[in-house]
């Protein structure tokens, strides 16, 4: 079946603008995760959803970052008033459930803030 999809694949924006990044998880997967991959930083956890609720938002770097998930499916990560340090690849992953189920990753959205 189809894997995790993300859109857009690339986004270039100006400092101070808001951006929305979208993730479509694998159908039937209840858990959804957002990570950020910065140059030389590895993968950094941002937020995790179980269904539509977010039990763990501990990785969101500032209150400019928010995320929601609707219908237990699609998720949107919103970054307000973007800064240059927000430039990174944003990865979404989904898993069938929790408890250490394998996480399947999307192709990522490359965000560049000028």
């Amino acid at each position: 079946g189809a894997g995790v999809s993300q859109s857009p694949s690339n986004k270039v924006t100006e400092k101070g603008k808001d951006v929305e990044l979208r993730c479509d998880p694998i159908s039937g997967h209840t858990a959804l995760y957002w990570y950020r991959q910065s140059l030389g930083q590895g993968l950094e956890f941002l937020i995790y959803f179980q269904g539509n609720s977010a039990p763990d938002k501990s990785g969101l770097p500032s209150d400019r970052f928010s995320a929601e998930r609707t219908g237990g499916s699609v998720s949107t990560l919103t970054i307000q008033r973007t800064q240059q340090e927000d430039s990174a690849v944003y990865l979404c992953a989904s898993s069938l459930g929790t408890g250490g189920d394998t996480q399947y990753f999307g192709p990522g959205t490359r965000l560049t803030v000028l």
Partner: protein
Amino acid sequence: AQRVTQPEKLLSVFKGAPVELKCNYSYSGSPELFWYVQYSRQRLQLLLRHISRESIKGFTADLNKGETSFHLKKPFAQEEDSAMYYCALWYFGNEKLTFGTGTRLTIIP
């Protein structure tokens, strides 16, 4: 807090030679360890996890709780093994994966 360390950012190995990518972790409980791989222009994908005790594409990894390590090994490197490799840790009650910074493996023909 839990941490995953991959001491080598870059590793070059000749084709046919053995490969070992190092991973050390810090966590006092019983974690589950994973290796993820990202080939050029492909998405990040699971290579193996310690609980399944599988050998995938000739790679194996043994969890050594005494040394808190989960090194990835392959006896004979192949050119198609060139990729970015990430070690990751999960533990019960904390659903996120904690990743190391990754090792870029290059196989020299």
